[in-house]
């Protein structure tokens, strides 16, 4: 140890400096100031974009982040304005939100609830974010939504398809634009019946986790209502990469439709295996064997390659839609990044704009004011046709796209074609069927 030499002069000097430091304007305060958490005080407002930058959904996350950057640019009046021009609400002026310039912080959810919450908490506690958005899985969405409810900020869910997000785990501070398993089932079943007949026997392979269960249930009940029979439902581990052992029993059953309740890499692998086993060339009970994928995304179609040709599924949005909103979005996204956006990018972009618009209309960043502004809000021009943000569960209701793998794709992005746009009335359900309690909005401290 070095020896500590105390001199009278040294002690006095240190004392004076320390004293001066302490007499600087010092005040203690509790967390509350403007009546809600992280009320923006300066001429900027900070939003938190919490997306998976690593892990299995990193591709979706990267696309979401691009969309958010685009949204911030448009909100601050940059670029070509994108969907601000086609959006039915004209509250946004391109001068930020309530005149405050939009700034953002980003974080990595790693598609893990813990990491996502840590990242969101640092945005709220350290960076002063007044809204958190993003995510690419339902587990993360539910976890972060609950956190935002507790902390008193708004959560605008990104890509999350499970019924739970706005069903049993719904929260007053959380909002979802993306569609859900129930809607997929309701939209898909009539198309399947029309194309494949009413007397089919379905075999389900389901990813063994929450989203898989809700999707399987949705597809099963809607197809059974139309006369289909469910032969078997088999759970597959989420980490499974080789599905051969799950395909063989299908060959021995008398099923003539295979439903793959898989997402992402799971779906790519299971579909590829199924095609390799010659399921699609099979004839059972005098009928052609068919495969169905309830939730499609372009990134998945890309992974599965030629195997997706002619396979039905549902999706929230597709860049080949020809309405004004979709065209405007594809144009600004394409100009900035050089390729068309995915559905994850679309839903995130729209969520950012919807939030900004709600703040503008509500006249405050207070989560309760935002919630009030979004409640039963009807809008159009965002690419999905007329849309309703239902007040009972904070879920968006809009048309659902039924798509199928394109037979002759013209580019690496042109992989899906739209079969039908299922009208919103057909996919609407009663808010109480999934249970859960919305609770009251929480503006924080």
């Amino acid at each position, binding site marked *: 140890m070095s020896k500590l030499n105390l001199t009278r002069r040294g002690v006095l000097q240190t004392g004076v400096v320390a004293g001066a430091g302490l007499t600087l304007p*010092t005040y203690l305060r509790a967390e509350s100031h403007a009546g809600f958490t992280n009320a923006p005080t300066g001429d900027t407002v900070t939003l938190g974009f919490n997306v998976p930058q*690593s892990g299995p959904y990193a591709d979706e996350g990267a696309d979401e982040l691009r969309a958010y950057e685009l949204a911030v640019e448009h909100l601050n009046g940059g670029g070509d304005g994108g969907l601000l021009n086609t959006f039915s609400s004209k509250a946004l002026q391109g001068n930020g939100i309530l005149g405050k310039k939009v700034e953002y912080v980003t974080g990595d959810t790693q598609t893990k*609830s813990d990491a996502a*919450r*840590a990242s969101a*908490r640092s945005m709220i506690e*350290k960076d002063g974010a007044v809204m958190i958005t993003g995510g690419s899985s339902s*587990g993360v969405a539910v*976890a972060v939504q609950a956190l935002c409810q507790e902390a008193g900020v708004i959560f605008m869910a990104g890509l999350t398809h499970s019924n739970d997000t706005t069903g049993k785990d719904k929260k007053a501070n959380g909002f979802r634009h993306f569609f859900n398993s129930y809607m997929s089932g309701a939209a898909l079943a009539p198309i399947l019946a029309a194309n494949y007949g009413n007397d089919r026997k379905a075999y389900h392979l389901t990813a063994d*986790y929450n989203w898989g269960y809700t999707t399987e249930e949705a597809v099963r009940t809607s197809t059974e209502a139309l006369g289909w029979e469910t032969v078997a439902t088999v759970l597959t581990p989420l980490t499974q990469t080789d599905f051969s052992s799950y395909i063989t029993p299908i060959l021995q059953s008398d099923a003539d439709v295979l439903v793959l309740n898989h997402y992402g890499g799971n779906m790519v692998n299971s579909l590829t295996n199924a095609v390799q086993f010659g399921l699609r060339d099979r004839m059972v009970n005098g009928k052609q064997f068919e495969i169905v994928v309830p939730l499609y995304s372009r990134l998945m179609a890309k992974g599965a390659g030629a195997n997706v040709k002619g396979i039905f599924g549902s999706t929230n949005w597709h860049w080949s839609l020809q309405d004004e909103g979709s065209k405007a979005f594809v144009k600004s996204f394409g100009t900035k990044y050089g390729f068309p956006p995915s559905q994850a990018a679309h839903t995130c972009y729209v969520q950012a704009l919807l939030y900004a618009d709600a703040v503008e209309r509500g006249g405050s960043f207070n989560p309760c004011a935002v919630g009030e502004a979004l409640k039963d809000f009807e809008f159009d021009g965002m690419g999905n046709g007329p849309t309703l943000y239902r007040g009972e569960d904070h879920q968006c209701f809009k048309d659902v796209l039924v798509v199928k793998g394109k037979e002759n794709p013209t580019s690496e992005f042109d992989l899906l074609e739209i079969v039908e746009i299922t009208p919103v009335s057909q996919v609407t359900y009663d808010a109480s069927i999934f249970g859960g309690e919305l609770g009251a909005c929480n503006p924080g401290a």
Partner: protein
Amino acid sequence: MFGLEKKDARLLILVAVLVAFAPFILNPFPEGSGLAQFNAGYPDLMQRFVIFGIFAIGFNILFGLTGYLSFGHAAFLGVGSYAAMWMMKLLTMNVIPGIVVSVIVAGVFSLAVGWISLRRSGIYFSILTLAFAQMSYSLAYSVLTPLTGGETGLQPKITDPRILDAALAPGATPKANLFGLEMGSSVELGMGSWLFTFNAGYYVAAIVMLVAFYMSIRIFRSPFGMMLRAVKSNQQRLNYTGLNTKPYTLAAFVISGMYAGLAGGLMVAMDTQVGAERMFWTASGEVVLMTILGGVGTLIGPVLGAGAIKYMENILSKINSDILHTWFAFLPDGLEDFVVTLIYPFIGKGWHLTLGLIFMAVVIFLPGGLVEGGQKIAKLFKRKSPVDDSPDGKTTPAE
């Protein structure tokens, strides 16, 4: 003091002071300045520092003393978390029952796992523990969904029974508390442009961590600790002398499992949510990294390692290309882009890469971890002293 030698007491006091003043120490940069990005003094991260500190201290009791490398410690953390969460849902939002039960449940579970895994040593032991952890993870993620909530995990709900708690006020949400003191509540202290946050949850976790640290010192210095070190240096010889080592290793395993459960319970107390990813093998690997990075077999090492890794995970991963551009805005355009391109792979999602490089550097140049680095620096400034032959192993890594 407290039955500690002078040197250990000094270390304990040092740690206590650091922990008490962490809100100041971790927030050295004024709000709004460019460097505020590197401030770590916000409640969530401070809580994580001490909680993962506890986790690593416990892991070090097993790995540092006996040399048994468990690759499944995250399972105990997860089990502790689930136990604490159920206590909160069923009994009360007060954190005490949750934390106590999490330690007990993790202890029982680690007894079962240890009983089987400790039949083997070396790599076979590691693989067995890894297998158990992955099994627990898969069970929690899918099969046990009714109990664990599966993918979406568990959170306190307004409708939970909470038989010991009074009914919630309408519109209120259940919040973790310690006899009414909410874990999330903070007091902020502004000094000029500096802002320091004192969080109730952090100080609760910090006190628990100090107790855990004290117990770890006692274990290190006890005859029991000496026996564990003997296991590490030569288990065979110990066996040949007629000693049965299994009770010692099993006890060490259970103790470190209970530390992990304690960390898990605290995590739930600070942030009322639990998901299965907490038990994934990467989480088990992380605590191994923490311990090695800080210094295996040292007292303070694992805490330092945990702090270093959590700091990088939470601070480095949030720097994006935009922030880089503002930092280097003073450079000419072409050069700015070039510098940003150079640094970009190491920040944001690339923080794993930075961590990997640092880890390699530490393992190659400082096999004793950060603690050895500290010692080397201290030596530079130290006057030549008579040979310091303290056998206590406080600052020297055990191997």
